[in-house]
């Protein structure tokens, strides 16, 4: 395959970026999208040029590090995959592909296609945990039975990989899907109920402070989420938030 690439290049946080054009040849249909970028970078390096910086690590769709906006879609045209799981067979020979970083005020660009997602860490630090110390004498794991349905739903919410595709794809740059996934995971477990109120209030507060937008229920996030995190979690988050604000002093 031969491809024309239009890629966002930006030297650092403060400089202005622009789209640059590249061509890559002899790309196998079986190679992954990031392997195609590897080949481009290799070509650039052999010419002594600066390669394109992009985040990636596990390359099996679980670490959440890769983050590209490809032809106007977060993680590209395939569904339920991250960029690293996207394969070139989803593109046509001779196609022009636009590759951009996540775009959101709360996720500033560091370089080229690399963005700063520490806002997500700070939201988690605001309450995305259960306050339990490590101890050899916590109660036995089977002391509190948890209905299978609750455990499964909690798990589904917990599979969020924190890639921020939801923010990138949302017209309001809202992080509601991300925040709601964590809030729901704990809200559905008895261990997490104890601090549920403080958690939801603090996490939402931090989310607003970071400059993420509001949710207007378009549902784009759910469609683009590589892990299929359900919009139901946002409803759950709203319910938790409402009841917490009404009952805490």
């Amino acid at each position, binding site marked *: 395959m031969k491809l024309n690439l239009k890629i966002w290049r930006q030297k650092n946080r403060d400089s202005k970026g622009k789209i640059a054009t590249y061509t890559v040849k002899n790309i196998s249909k079986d190679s992954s999208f990031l392997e195609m970028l590897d080949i481009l970078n290799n070509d650039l390096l052999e010419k002594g040029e600066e*390669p394109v910086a992009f985040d990636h690590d*596990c*390359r099996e769709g679980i670490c*959440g590090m890769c983050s590209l906006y490809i032809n106007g879609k977060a993680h590209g045209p395939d569904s339920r995959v991250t960029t690293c799981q996207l394969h070139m067979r989803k593109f046509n020979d001779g196609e022009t592909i636009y590759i951009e970083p996540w775009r959101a005020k709360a996720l500033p660009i560091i370089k080229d296609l690399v963005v700063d997602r520490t806002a*997500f860490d700070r939201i988690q630090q605001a309450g995305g*945990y259960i*306050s339990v110390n490590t101890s*050899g004498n916590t109660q036995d794991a089977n002391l509190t039975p*948890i209905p299978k349905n609750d455990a499964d739903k909690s798990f589904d919410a*917990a599979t969020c990989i924190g890639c921020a595709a939801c923010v990138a794809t949302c017209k309001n740059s809202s992080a509601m899907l991300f925040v709601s996934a964590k809030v729901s995971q704990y809200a559905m477990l008895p261990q997490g109920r104890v601090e549920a109120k403080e958690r939801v209030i603090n996490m939402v507060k931090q989310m607003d402070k970071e400059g993420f937008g509001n949710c207007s229920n378009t549902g784009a996030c759910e469609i683009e989420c590589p892990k299929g995190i359900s919009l139901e979690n946002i409803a759950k988050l709203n319910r938790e938030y409402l009841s917490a604000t009404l009952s805490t002093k």
Partner: protein
Amino acid sequence: MKKITFAINYRKAKAKYNQDELVEICVRYYFLDKNTSKYKVKNMSTGVKCMLKDWDKDWHKNPERLPILKTDIDYIEKNKKLFELRKRILVDNFQKIDTEDKLFKSSKKLNAKIPNGEINLKWTNHKNNINLVNPANKRNIDIIVVGTGLAGGSASASLAELGYNVKSFCYQDSPRRAHSIAAQGGINAAKNYQNDGDSVHRLFYDTVKGGDYRSREANVYRLAEVSGNIIDQCVAQGVPFAREYGGLLDNRSFGGVLVSRTFYAKGQTGQQLLLGAYSAMNRQIAKGKIQMYNRHEMLELVLVEGKARGIIARNLETGEIKKYSAHAVVIASGGYGNVFYLSTNAMGSNVTASWKIHKKGAYFANPCFTQIHPTCIPRSGDHQSKLTLMSESLRNDGRIWVPKKIEDVKKIRNGDLKPIDIKEEERDYYLERRYPAFGNLVPRDVASRAAKERIDAGFGVNKTGEAVYLDYSSAIKRYGKEKALLIGIKKPSEKEIISLGEEIVEAKYGNLFQMYEKIVDENPYKTPMMIYPAVHYTMGGVWVDYNLMTSIPGCYCIGEANFSDHGANRLGASALMQGLADGYFVLPYTIGDYLADEIRTGPISTDTKEFDEAKKSVEEKIKKLANIKGSKPADYFHIKLGKIMWEYVGMSRNEKGLKTAIKEIKKLRSLFWKELFIPEDIYSMNKELEKAGRVLDFLELGELFALDALNRNESCGGHYREESVEKDGPQKGEAKRDDENYSYVSAWEYMDDPSKSVLHKEHLKFDNIELKQRSYK
């Protein structure tokens, strides 16, 4: 062997014997007298006699190793009797003396500090006698933790909870992305919730046996002991493990064991456990007890008066190089499987932190013990950057085969024949053929080697010739028939059976099948999957004592980065267990023993000669790399190194190949120093510079790896030497372990260059487990 040998029982002066006279042979052994701490010799008569001229006094030098020469008519019978007697002595009373004896001869530089007492009391006694640090003093003590995977993350959180000030480093953009996240299958714990006879001892036994008797007994027992606490802790943290309808935790079984002790969260157990540790870290970051350094890479360890006192790290965003001090340094940076370039590790996984401490004096143990996982998705071409693992659980129901006829293989490769068109009798289910007892469920190392054997013989099925089939058609039919019966269809059609069977298989393995389909673009329900072994986990790592401290005072190593618990082969679902055991339940206690002496040290300044020199050396190294100004990117060398490693130091190793590897790696390293190219802006985000540094460390480690494999002329676990196989008997052709000569940990000390490394041996002592040959026939 020196400690047990054969000798002649002379009754009179040697010279007075004539050559035809009969002499009696005795077994002689040396043992350590506990009272005097001196060696004593004991002779035992055997009743076997021969003529003096038929006695070979240098029998152990003779290639056939026979004490009685072939000139004796009954030499076969007599020798056999001698060896049997020797063996009986070994088993009856020699083993204990022998191992104590060997332990005594472990390198003096290696003190494993294993506590005294019965194995089940060692850890309890040790905890009771360990030094503690007063909570008020903990506030004045800093600890650096490098890596935020299961081991590093859980350690950082637990240490901060105890009151220490933790500085935590990771190269990713968030601690949540460490590669522990990719672990699929599950985590073992001796809870015995299934009432199937599991116990701490059984988990301990399985782990030691699975590791082919090359792990340290006391460490493994402790691991089994704390395994139950891990599950309690994780549930309390809100980790959503799989549950049964009654609301209690579910278990599954895993390869190499006979009980169900694996806890899991679908195929994402590693992710859920890591997010649990990450949430515990977040709580401490919010409190200011953990100072988090994302996108930072450790590039040097700083020693002050022989103690680990800090690190030099590079900010990967700005390129800034800074000094960080602490009272102790913990390395939790994972394994070094990426030395093979293609592995199931993350792209950034590296050996740099471990290698830097090795070069500063920490011994590196058993580098050649690497696990090659049998069920990975094969390489599709030269562009391949990494390999994807598919859970071992697939072997529970799948059958592995290649065509029997080489013509069929050729047709398949050319696309003229489809695997489903090959008749049952034309398929070679080679695992079932070779290992009827365990079949497709043999341990990972055995399954991988069997695949390689078929592929080397020319039966590989992919375009690249590097794949075997994993077939679900029998399982689909079997499940389909069962289900049809269950829902009352008396005479189901073939179509109905398949459709019902596919539903069941989807419920069990759906996510794995989907992953396969996304990558390979074939429907695994309709056509057999192609699999190939890939490098997955490294059992070897930095040498540590019972307290998990390396040979550098104040420098600790935990998780996959250390060597102690998995021996020569790791069982499934044991890596998560070890990472969390080290981080949550072992290190937080044992580090106190060292830090108790540090309460008067006070804050450690970074404005000292040692820190400045370390920083300068890092800066110079980086400049040196940038100034090579060659024409090849770092990946070029990494790919080449991977090819050398896979070819000569991969699944099957021999002396000639290993020597070639050492030579080739040396050559490649000097080429690296001539030909490397990286973009010159080193004070900004420069991913090529990061890669180059890591590749350079791999280029050095690779050589030590091959050297270790060369030294260990036995086959054990994942390490297979072609020279050491069973020559006959029912195990003919299988790997042969050599306990007499290699029952030790090889701990390498760095000296200027990997090839000059000095070997220290820690002899392994097994008081609670009898050493056996593993058999899966």
